[in-house]
Every structure is written in structure tokens, then in C-alpha cells.
């Protein structure tokens, strides 16, 4: 009950402030539509919005999965070698430092205006947090543990797969949770730069036609979608987390 209240209270407060501002200042609907108008559009054009919402959701989920998989794999490949980390780290940092807006046109040119370019952008955004977190996990082995395991005369590969990798899983999952919150950026930016579907595309079109209420409706759906994907990622990752956390 209190959890539901904690979620609903700020949303209700935000809607109340929004409604009050529109009413009090008599703001025209093409500048800031009232919540009831947005709700009306959401209801009346649900079919159109859900088609575009599905496209965006697919881009986000597939990008999140692919980016996480790539990030985890790259971290595993370089995690056991300081030299490899030193060589690859500049490229990894550049992949994150370059604004996705700057490389979006290039990806459009290479991969076209369809699903692939949006997937690539989302994957790119997701990749780095997962790689960086997994690498932190590999470095998190306490020195006394290292000393203890050294006395067991382990094979390097066995130590990696039986100890270091499972211990890095909670860190990796923390990276996936962070990535899930930023993944929509890749999909939406991709849709803005060039696409024929998705909530970003719908917002762009609605903006060009002065349909601010449709823009807001798409934005509300995008927020709900992002929250849902993040919550699902959080729930799934915590189930795995519990198995490998609590180092003793």
C-alpha cells in the first residue's frame, strides 16, 4: 500500500501542478495541453500510438539485450588481462564520450533508416555501462581472497570461470540496470535522425503539424515504457543478484 502510494503521490502531484499552471495562466493547448486533453488523445489515438510504442519498445529491449551481451563478453575477454584493458580502454571510453547525436547520421548512412540503425545506437549506449561495471567486478576480488586462492594452486581459466566471473555478476547486473535507464535515449535519437516509425518519429511528426497534445501523449507513453523496461530489468537482475552477492 505504502509502495503504491510512494509511486502514485509524485505522479499525482505533477499532474496537479501541470493542470493548475495550464488553468491559472490560461496557456493555449498548442503550447502546453492540459492533462485531460492529453488523456483524450491517448485514448482516441491508442491504435496509432501503440504501433509506434511497440517499435520503440522493440528497439530498446533488443538494444539492451545486445548491448549487455556485448558489454559482458568484451569485459570477460579483457577482464583477466591488465594489458588488454590498457589497450582497449581508450576505444571503450571514446565509444561512450562521442555523443550519440554525432554518430547517428553515420549509422543512418551505413545501416539505413530501419530497425538496424536504432538497434546499433541503443546497443552503443548500453555497451559501456555494462562493460565498465563488469570490469569493476573483476577488480573487486579482495586481496586476501586472491592470496587464499593462490595457495590452492588454481588453473588460471578455472579461477576465472569458477571465482572471478561469478563474483563479477552482481556488478555486471548493476551496469545493466544503469544501462536500462539510458537505453531509450539511443532509440529515440535514432528515430529523430531518420525513421519511419517509433515514438520519436511520432513526436517529430506531431510537432511539425502543431499537434502538441499528441506529442505529449507520445511522451507519456515513452515515460511509461522506459519505467516498465527498467522495472523488469531490475526485477530480473535482482533474482540473479541474490545468488552471487554477499561475499563471505
Amino acid at each position: 500500500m505504502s509502495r503504491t502510494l510512494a509511486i502514485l503521490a509524485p505522479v499525482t502531484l505533477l499532474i496537479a501542478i501541470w493542470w493548475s499552471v495550464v488553468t491559472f495562466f490560461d496557456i493555449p493547448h498548442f503550447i502546453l495541453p492540459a492533462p485531460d486533453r492529453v488523456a483524450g488523445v491517448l485514448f482516441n489515438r491508442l491504435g496509432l500510438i501503440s504501433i509506434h510504442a511497440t517499435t520503440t519498445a522493440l528497439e530498446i529491449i533488443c538494444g539492451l539485450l545486445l548491448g549487455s551481451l556485448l558489454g559482458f563478453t568484451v569485459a570477460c575477454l579483457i577482464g583477466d588481462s591488465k594489458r588488454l584493458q590498457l589497450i582497449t580502454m581508450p576505444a571503450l571510453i571514446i565509444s561512450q564520450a562521442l555523443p550519440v547525436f554525432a554518430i547517428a547520421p553515420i549509422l543512418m548512412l551505413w545501416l539505413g533508416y530501419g530497425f538496424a540503425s536504432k538497434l546499433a545506437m541503443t546497443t552503443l549506449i548500453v555497451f559501456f555501462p555494462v562493460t565498465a561495471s563488469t570490469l569493476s567486478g573483476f577488480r573487486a576480488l579482495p586481496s586476501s581472497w586472491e592470496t587464499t586462492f593462490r595457495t590452492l594452486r588454481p588453473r588460471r581459466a578455472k579461477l576465472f570461470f569458477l571465482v572471478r566471473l561469478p563474483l563479477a555478476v552482481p556488478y555486471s547486473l548493476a551496469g545493466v540496470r544503469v544501462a536500462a535507464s539510458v537505453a531509450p535515449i539511443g532509440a529515440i535519437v535514432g528515430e529523430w535522425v531518420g525513421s519511419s516509425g517509433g515514438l520519436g518519429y511520432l513526436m517529430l511528426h506531431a510537432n511539425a503539424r502543431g499537434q502538441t497534445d499528441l506529442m505529449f501523449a507520445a511522451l507519456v507513453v515513452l515515460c511509461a515504457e522506459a519505467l516498465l523496461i527498467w522495472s523488469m530489468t531490475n526485477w530480473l537482475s535482482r533474482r540473479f543478484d541474490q545468488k552471487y552477492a554477499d561475499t563471505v
Partner: protein
Amino acid sequence: MTKAFEEIPPNDPLLSIDKLNLGYQGQPPLATISWMIQRGQKVVLLGKSGSGKSTLLDTIIRGSSAIQCRTLRVAYLSQQPALLPWLSILDNVLLGFKLRGEKILTQHRERARQLLIDVELPYFKSQKAHQLSGGERSRVAIARALIEDADLVLLDEPFAALDRSTKIQMAKLCKQLLANKTVILVTHDPRDAEDWFNEAMVLTPGGLKGPFDIDHFKNDHALIQTLDGDL
């Protein structure tokens, strides 16, 4: 009898340390150490925090040109028992076999079960490590060290995080189970070695001092001063 390296002739020692510059690379050494440990010897290594006691154990395990260790079978127990939370207690005891890629035979499992009985944890074999108390986790770590049949056992304040009565219990258990092993116990509290060890070495910036009688040590204020009142 443990003595500084220069004072006694070598007589098949298990561990010989000859002018080891103890410390970290690129930093001035904490101390220069020469030391010999005979088979079956049990010695407490005392010293104030930061004197390099744990670093010395770590260097013995990592190896150095100044150290001659005549066994590969070395066990190490620290404050953190290093148990893997996703493995059962029995699998944690058998971890060394898994890490070396050795096949775990029935006789190994039987030995592990027996060791769990020896460390008074017979009913815990299928439980996970996080379900155990601090003292119980330390017992599992002892069982893991024993199944490796180590000749040299290095204890780095393994019971420091435990309460006094559990500490006494663990010391009794170690005394009994490690009776025929060579043991070095690092601590800054001589009470950890009560009724178990009878000689002590003190690690100071000037090098390794000793051996001292552990009982004598407790009453010698000059030696306590050497540790900068860290006791």
C-alpha cells in the same frame, strides 16, 4: 626453535628468508628480514599495524628470490574466510580440487565430510556459506586448508573479527587440528596465541626480533613499547 637467520645454522628448514626487503614496489622497504622456520614449528608473529606482518605472509605465498620455501603445500587463513556464496559448504571445502581441475573422487568427498565433523560442522555440508555465522565460516576455511594437507599454515589474524569466546574455541580447535603442521600466526594480540604457541617474533622497522617466550612477552613492558603501545 625460531631464531634470526644469522644466529643459527640452517638445519633443513621448511622456510628460509634471507635479507628480504619487505614492502611494496617503488616504496622504501618496511623492514629487511632474515628468518628460518623448522618443520613442525609454531610461531606467533607480532607487530604493530602497518609493520608488514600480512605483507610478509603475502610475500611468502607469492614467492621471492630471497625466500626458499621447501613445500608447495601452503595454506592461508585470513579474517575473510573466502567462501563462495553460491557453493555448498562441502563444495567450498573441495574448492582446491575444482580450481586445479582435478577430479573429485569419493575418497575426497569422504575426507571433506570427515573434516567437517572434525571442525564440528557435521550437519552443515549442504548449506550455503552465507547461512553460517562468522565462527562457522572460519571452521569451513580451516577444513578447506586441512583437506589440502598443507605443510605450512599461515594464519593472518583469522579470528580477529570473532567474539572472545568464539576466538578461544577456534584457537583450541586449531591447536588440535594443526598439531603436526608448521604454523605462523600473525596477530597484534598475544592472547590469540595463548596455550597454543610458546614463542613469538616481533616485526619492527629494524627487522625481525626474537624469538621470545610468549609468556615472558606478555609481561615485558619494554617489548610492548617496541610495538608502540599497539596492544
